[in-house]
């Protein structure tokens, strides 16, 4: 936490009358279907073992399974799901299935059953027929019987290799989890968090399109971890964003917006849990555009059409739930999206006179800044310094001036990651912006960040200190063809 923030009490959103942290319970396919399908598979295999796979009892159960699976797909947008097995767990669509503890043993048995046959993935498509279940049972039973035969113990059983049903697909895939990525290196951890956020956000957006309930749990974990590093390494995150590893993608924009929003909030001295709320709100601030792909053409620009546009988004978003704090913040920020800060929202929005909520104003700056530096369509992206100056021109008209100033100081007049030419003739990379408290008390240093020379010496020069006041930044420069940007670890 920056110095001046240490002296402020940690600020927490006032306990609201009804909003809980998150009241929405898990109705994902994983939760709803996971334990049930494992129990069903075990039941059918057990019955097949007693009566034989061709027996009418088995056929009866197959029929029941087919019906229950059809019911599971009803009212969901998923067209398929994938069951995955590892040595330790069972997953559906990449998410771990948590069994009621009493049923854990069943999961072990089913897991063993398939892994023994070198199958670790089963894809079920909508419309599984009873006959397909029957075929699966027969194939598994044959495979198990064949495995009893010593000679074929280690080979994948032919009956499973030739298994081919329209709505059930068996596969053996190479599965990895992320245990192996654990590292003590702080630099790698931070880079992993940023990269992980992009991957998980992309996955979340995909899930939103294809499933009824996507969980933001993994994004939340990463956002929490990122928060832990802000105090000492916020500048690194800014540098990572400025590397622009991936551009023009919605998930990248979402992650960047979330981070920028959290930076401003951190500078205000908000509590860590509040930063996470803000991050989660900001990262999903455009999900309505993902969920609802058809966008109306607006004929006449004005308050009414603005309201209508926002309402389309709000209506879509409301399906994701609204009675927890994050959902409420998300709904409200979407409701107020794009409205200039300096005038009260019209009567269509609120019967009372309200200006946009603090979070709406904050996210507006963050998202616009990111769009400016990413660029839209054929428009050339702006350099960070120009983007900041562009924002500043609308400060007081569209953007909250206090938040804008705070943002500019957080990002840095010369943002982290920029290559600059020093008055000494040397080139350097900006690695850290001046501390805001210092910048506030001494107005001449806000544009004097810490830079690292690119001459191979990796020498750090803090331009804010007295002894370096003979050096200043002349301009931001682009790397030439021969020059290589040193990469993320340079920021440390």
């Amino acid at each position: 936490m920056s110095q001046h923030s240490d002296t402020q009490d940690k600020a927490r959103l006032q306990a609201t009358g009804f909003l809980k942290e998150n009241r929405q319970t898990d109705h994902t396919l994983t939760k709803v279907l996971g334990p049930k399908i494992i129990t069903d598979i075990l039941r059918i295999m057990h019955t097949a073992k007693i009566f034989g796979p061709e027996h009418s009892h088995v056929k009866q159960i197959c029929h029941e399974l087919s019906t229950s699976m059809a019911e599971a797909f009803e009212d969901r947008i998923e067209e398929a799901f994938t069951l995955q097995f590892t040595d330790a767990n069972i997953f559906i669509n990449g998410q771990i299935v948590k069994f009621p503890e009493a049923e854990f043993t069943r999961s072990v048995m089913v897991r063993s059953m398939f892994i023994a046959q070198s199958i670790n993935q089963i894809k079920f498509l909508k419309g599984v027929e009873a006959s397909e279940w029957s075929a699966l049972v027969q194939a598994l039973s044959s495979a198990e019987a064949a495995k009893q035969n010593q000679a074929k113990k280690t080979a994948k059983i032919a009956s499973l290799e030739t298994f081919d049903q329209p709505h059930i697909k068996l596969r053996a895939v190479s599965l990895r989890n992320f245990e192996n990525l654990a590292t003590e290196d702080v630099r790698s951890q931070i880079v992993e968090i940023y990269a992980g956020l992009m991957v998980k956000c992309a996955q979340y957006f995909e899930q939103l399109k294809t499933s009824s309930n996507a969980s933001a749990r993994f994004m939340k974990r990463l956002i929490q971890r990122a928060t832990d590093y802000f105090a000492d390494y916020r500048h690194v995150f800014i540098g990572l964003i400025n590397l622009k590893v991936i551009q023009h993608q919605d998930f990248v924009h979402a992650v960047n917006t979330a981070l920028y929003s959290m930076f401003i909030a951190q500078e205000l001295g908000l509590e860590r849990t509040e930063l996470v709320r803000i991050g989660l709100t900001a990262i999903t601030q455009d999900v309505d555009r993902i969920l609802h792909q058809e966008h109306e053409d607006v004929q006449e620009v004005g308050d009414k059409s603005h309201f209508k546009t926002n309402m389309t988004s709000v209506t879509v978003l409301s399906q994701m739930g609204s009675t927890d704090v994050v959902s409420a913040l998300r709904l409200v920020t979407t409701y107020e999206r794009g409205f200039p800060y300096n005038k009260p929202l019209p009567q269509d929005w609120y019967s009372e006179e309200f200006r946009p909520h603090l979070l709406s104003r904050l996210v507006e700056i963050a998202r616009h800044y990111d769009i400016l530096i990413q660029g839209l369509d054929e428009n050339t992206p702006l350099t960070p310094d120009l983007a900041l100056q562009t924002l500043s021109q609308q400060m007081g008209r569209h953007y909250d001036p206090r938040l804008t100033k705070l943002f500019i100081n957080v990002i840095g007049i010369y943002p982290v990651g920029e290559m600059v030419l020093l008055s000494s003739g040397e080139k350097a990379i900006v690695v850290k912006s001046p501390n805001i408290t210092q910048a506030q008390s001494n107005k001449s240093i806000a544009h004097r960040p810490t830079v690292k020379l690119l001459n191979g010496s990796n020498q750090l020069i803090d331009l804010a200190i007295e002894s370096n006041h003979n050096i200043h930044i002349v301009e931001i420069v682009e790397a030439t063809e021969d020059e290589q940007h040193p990469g993320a670890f340079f920021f440390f």
Partner: protein
Amino acid sequence: MPNTSADTTLRATLVGEDQQNTQRKKQMNLFMHTVDKFVLLLRVYPTGHPLVENFAEHMLDQLKDFFKLESSLYVRVKATELLTENNEVFFTREESEREHFLWYVPAMDGLVSFEIPPDVSIKELVRFLSAISKASVGDLPMDDDTITLLWEYDLDHIKIHSVENYISSDEQETFGELDDAEALVTIMGATAKPQGEDSKTIKDIFEGARTTLDPDMFTQLQYNAETIMSTPTMPAQMIADAFRVDMSWTRELVDEWVSGDNLEYRLLESLISIVRADHRSKPAIQAIETISDILVHMLDNTEYDKAAELFELIRKREILFNSEGDNNPLSLMMDSITDPIRIEALIYQAQKYDSDKPDLLKLFAYCRKEQVLKQVLTQIADEKRTVLNIRTLVDILFIVTNKTNEMQWLDSKYTGNTVYFTRLLPVIKTIRIEDHQIVQRVLAKALELDHEEIKKQTLELAEPSWCSSLVIEKYIKPRMDDKNKEVRKLAIDAVRKLDEQSFKTWLHQAMDMESLSFRPSGEILFLLRFFIEVEPENINKIRDMLTTRGWFNEKRRTLATSVARVLLEHNDTQTIELMEKQAASLLTSPSLREDYSRLLKQFKPSTAHKEEQ
């Protein structure tokens, strides 16, 4: 080979280490059993309860011996067992006395290990275990698990190690052929080496790919407007000066956040707007349910002040759906929230808890007034129903009464019960009757009842604000001849105060000896005195009563003595003479003669003396 002393020492060391290891595992096992019991306690008592704190202290004491040998308590977590740092099982699901293994869900959530140091505080240990307990119970919200919960609990000393515990889904196409793990590693590589192979891979995937950056139209408009502007580049020094941050206003911003800045209000407005768009649509139906859920939750949690604000908002916005008539979605929702049982509960709360009353009164203002009115009036008028605070009920009545429904106060199903008035009247005494027309009418109604106590109480409240000439004429004057003397007295007093002229007229009529004779002496005296007070020459008329031959006899003795007394009070010499004469006359009844003598003695001792003589 013979055993050497080195072998013996080694063997002894190994045996000693084995024993130590066994001892360590035993201690850890014991600790986990204690943890199981502690978690049970947490289900019953809140954190901070002395029992919880003491038990936690006991748990830490248990570890004292352990920490003599070990620098920390390191535990690896699996779904059905716990292991030491060296992967030795020391506690299993079967051993646990709990029905459900406490560590099962945390393991599923990716908790790999935790480490408790010797200097952990009781508070932190309790926080850690309460998070585990909460996660273990299950049913955590969708975006939470053990790990996110532990993070929020902010543990300083206890170290947690967790993994993401998900695996790649090959359903995703965002990163081309790369699965999640590969995508992660590739992006990390690209950030580390912007010109490396990984960077090239990323470029190949995304260069030329359709942009998915698709902001809404108004954001695009703002973007276009900003990018076509020419941005004058400013010298850095000028920028630094222009964008200085004044930390005093950041405090204002923080205050805005902490105050909530009407978040619930804004949320409700956004939900109402969904309903406005198309109230029959599925999102609108869900929005209504959400609004209802929010309001019910507030009422259940006695957040009456906030609920009142939101009720007000709903009522304001109701007019947007006026065209729907009886199917106004907001009205229907409000009706379902403020059903009779809920209203009954709120009425009870308002009576019982003074602190909640002001907010509840605000709330009632936005409920269906007729319904509330009816329920309160019914409660007042039903003697079988307990009234905890009649003043509160009356306050509620005032809030919900309007010109349209006020006549309900006079409905015979209420006014027909005397308890209605016996409950209301004491309260009415304490309010400004002139401010409430309906109360005035209730009072008038009360006077119609044949109930002495009610009549008395009502008459005590007689005042110009509500006692119009009609009221006086129709309701009060008839009481001046009421069979109950107290009622009569009050009525007379009331008329005297309220309508002096009328009183005088009546008084003249009342001075008829026939009607006077049926009144008790106190009343006669009062009337006579007042009769003279009003017009002094009336004394002659009264005196004339004494002279009415044959009138004053034994039967009318009271009247006679009253008349005489009043006249003597005025030192009327003619009366004295008259009385002396009558006291001496045999035509006057004996008892009356005695009364006259006594009165004369009382008022005119010299006269009495003369008489004796």
